[in-house]
């Protein structure tokens, strides 16, 4: 729908329910500009159109914008459409009931009923800003759709009064299908919530929308559900690795690390009564194996009593339930707690995975009663590095390093300083991004986006949701030679999902080739600085 300035964007909230070919489109010239050498729009042609077959199959859900993150096949008949609308309405009512949504009812109602529509949140949303302020991505757009439906269909009170506040938004099948897609255009980074003067949380609203779709209609992206929590709870890991495969992989990683360091690194398995159970994101073992190798090297080097678990889900800290489904979230967390109890450990240490931190460290605190204390690996590593238990030589890390703050670890948990303390000690050229700490920008891969790439969604992510972070990374290295790929620069991202998104954005923009920008975790830098190691852990050729 062409709106102001010829942009294709919704003109009003009501447009979401009105049938049209496409609600919004972001042309490459409308995107937030990037500095040279990334400012040439011909190098980045924009989001490729969805295939005709995809459009035909997914119907209304493929008419939101340029991409399709999950999509729902178009119902065959109007009767089928009507049934979906009814199911949505039933889910909407459950979302505001004490029994079904005790998990978030209070914050959700507070956010539904008190927004002043002042738009203070808008300027702080990286997706909205990077898209060139396309109305579809404004934090309040999807929130307002849910709000108006709530006032009209759920909130007790006079029909007249509630209509007065809902401005005539019609609940149609197209609205439901598009709203499902729209719930996957926000990274749940909660930066907007930080700036809301009233305390309204548009990130939470998106989260609960996703939940409604998953828990009532069974709609969720396959990467999060079928291949995510379901696979984790049945096979053991969302990567698909069962315990034999994972043990094999870890053995190989340990051997490789031992060789590179020149001393033995060994991962203990299923040690009854160990002090701590270490649970990492199992994606690391496949995509960034050195991350586990370095974690093991540090824990061994400090002489700590630790173990990993080969039980189902015990070796995979991911919990995609955090992004779309409270029941699945609680199941994965329950599993983690049960394993820790069985091993009799004193605590669970959460590896470099942001959403594991948030899901297990904070949210899971109230999903049941049989808990085990959890702590962050970042905090533990800081204490190890400063205790002198391992010997570090900062001159081995003498290249520009900047730090990405994973939203879940920093904005949501307040773990801000430990990773900085470590970098200050071991990286002489450490520099901050602007802004950083609790006001960081999301990597663009938050809320599951990093592992979702159906259709052309990866292009959407790289061009829009990761764009602000990419600009920040360039800004952090602005004092270096951005045109010199030989000058190596390192983005430290202590989170698996963030690393995935950063890997993709650096590839997409060709930042390694153009500017020599590489990425990795925190523990890799620590081990790279370990005095006496046979060879450096950071192998620029292989990164």
């Amino acid at each position: 729908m062409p709106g102001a300035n010829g942009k294709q964007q919704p003109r009003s909230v009501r447009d979401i329910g009105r049938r049209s070919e496409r609600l919004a489109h972001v042309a490459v010239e409308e995107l937030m500009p990037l500095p040279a050498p990334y400012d040439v729009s011909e190098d980045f042609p924009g989001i490729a159109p969805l295939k005709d077959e995809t459009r035909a199959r997914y119907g209304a859900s493929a008419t939101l914008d340029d991409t399709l993150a999950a999509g729902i096949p178009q119902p065959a008949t109007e009767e089928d459409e009507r049934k979906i609308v009814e199911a949505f309405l039933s889910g909407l009512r459950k979302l505001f009931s004490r029994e079904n949504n005790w998990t978030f009812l209070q914050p959700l109602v507070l956010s539904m009923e008190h927004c002043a529509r002042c738009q203070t949140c808008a300027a702080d949303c990286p997706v909205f800003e990077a898209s060139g302020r396309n109305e579809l991505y404004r934090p309040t757009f999807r929130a307002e759709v849910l709000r108006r439906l709530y006032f009209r269909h759920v909130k007790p009170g006079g029909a007249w009064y509630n209509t007065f506040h809902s401005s005539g938004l019609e609940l149609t099948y197209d609205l439901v299908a598009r709203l499902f897609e729209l719930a996957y255009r926000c990274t749940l980074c909660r930066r907007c919530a930080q700036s809301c003067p009233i305390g309204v949380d548009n990130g939470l609203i998106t989260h609960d929308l996703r939940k409604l779709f998953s828990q009532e209609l069974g709609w969720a992206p396959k990467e999060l559900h079928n291949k995510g929590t379901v696979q984790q709870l049945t096979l053991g890991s969302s990567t698909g690795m069962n315990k034999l495969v994972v043990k094999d992989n870890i053995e190989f990683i340990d051997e490789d690390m031992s060789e590179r360091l020149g001393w033995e690194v060994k991962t203990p398995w299923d040690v009854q009564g160990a002090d701590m159970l270490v649970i990492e994101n199992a994606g690391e073992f496949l995509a960034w194996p050195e991350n586990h190798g370095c974690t093991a090297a540090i824990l061994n080097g400090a002489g700590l009593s630790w173990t990993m678990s080969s039980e189902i889900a015990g070796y995979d800290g991911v919990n995609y339930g955090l992004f779309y489904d409270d029941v699945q979230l609680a199941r994965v967390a329950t599993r983690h707690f049960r394993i820790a109890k069985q091993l009799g450990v004193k605590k669970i240490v959460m590896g470099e995975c942001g959403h594991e931190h948030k899901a297990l460290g904070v949210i899971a605190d109230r999903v049941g009663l049989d808990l085990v204390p959890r702590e962050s690996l970042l905090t533990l590593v800081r204490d190890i590095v400063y205790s002198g238990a391992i010997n570090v030589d900062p001159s081995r890390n003498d290249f520009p390093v900047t730090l990405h703050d994973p939203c879940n670890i920093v904005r949501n948990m307040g773990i801000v300083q430990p990773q900085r303390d470590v970098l200050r000690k071991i990286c002489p050229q450490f520099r901050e991004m602007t802004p950083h700490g609790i006001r960081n920008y999301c990597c663009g891969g938050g809320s599951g986006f990093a592992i979702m790439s159906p259709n052309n969604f990866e292009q959407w992510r790289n061009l829009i949701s990761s764009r602000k972070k990419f600009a920040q990374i360039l800004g952090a290295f602005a004092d270096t030679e951005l045109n010199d790929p030989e000058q190596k620069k390192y983005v430290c991202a202590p989170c698996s999902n963030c690393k995935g998104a950063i890997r993709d954005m650096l590839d997409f923009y060709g930042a390694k080739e153009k500017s020599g920008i590489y990425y990795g975790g925190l523990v890799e830098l620590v081990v790279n600085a370990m005095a006496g190691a046979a060879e450096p852990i950071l192998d620029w050729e292989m990164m």
Partner: protein
Amino acid sequence: MSLFHIVIYGSLLIFIVAILARAARIMRMPLHLRWELQPVPHERPGASTFERVDWWTHSRDRSRFGELSIMIPEILLLKGVWEHNRGLWFASWTLHFGLYLLIGAMVVILLHAVLLVAGVLADAFVPVVLAAVTRPLAIAGGALGTVGAIAMLIRRITEPGMRRYATAGHFVNLAHLGAIYVTALLWALLDGGFVAETATLYAGVLTAAPLPSLPLIGYLNVAIVLLFFIYLPFTHMTHFFTKYFTYHMVRWEDTPNTAGGRLEEKIRRNVSQPVSWAAAHVGANGKKTWLDLVADTGEVKRETEEA
């Protein structure tokens, strides 16, 4: 007791009951999962809970001062809007601060009325001081608020984002607030008897004594204010007090669930409720509780299958 009395008492009663009911409704909602958001000001800066190894073995030092140092600039100066949406700040601050000043004037009038009822002579020191500040406060509040209401109206119409999300309700609220400010300003500015009339009016309300007659603008102001009292509790403008909940019960609510701690009973109640979500993977049947559902993480079934 006159009809005027009844209207005033009725409006105040509706206001108080509706506000209390709203607060009670929010407070009675179940304990939710943790959803705190930084900054959490009662934490020690530079050493938040999770930044310590074995954090559960340390006592949680909570600083009330930290919370106040955020709340006071937020309430008085709208610091958040200043930092994140400067273009809106002038309209928003004048609109809000005008109201604070008018509420301040009402408190002063109330004190004045209490002293009159208590038999303190009108020319005693305190009533004289109170009388002296009433009119300037009301004029300043009315003027600032009028400017704020006009500025906010302009902003809501001209700023595309605000215009797109405005409902009819926003304009009604704004018109209502504007009418309060304008009538308060005119009454305080033009009526020489403003201080005495308002103090006597409040005293009459406190004691159910006969109420003074007011100039037309006075009646208009009182009528609009009373209507506002009735209407306010049903609008998003209740954020003036629900903001307390969004901050203290959500953003800053980080109480850990410890064994035998004060949250346990609430959590037990939550997880013992039956769930009725319809998606197949949830496995709900309206009878199984949350605890039943999440305890089934699939491994029992798998072990049987493997065997």
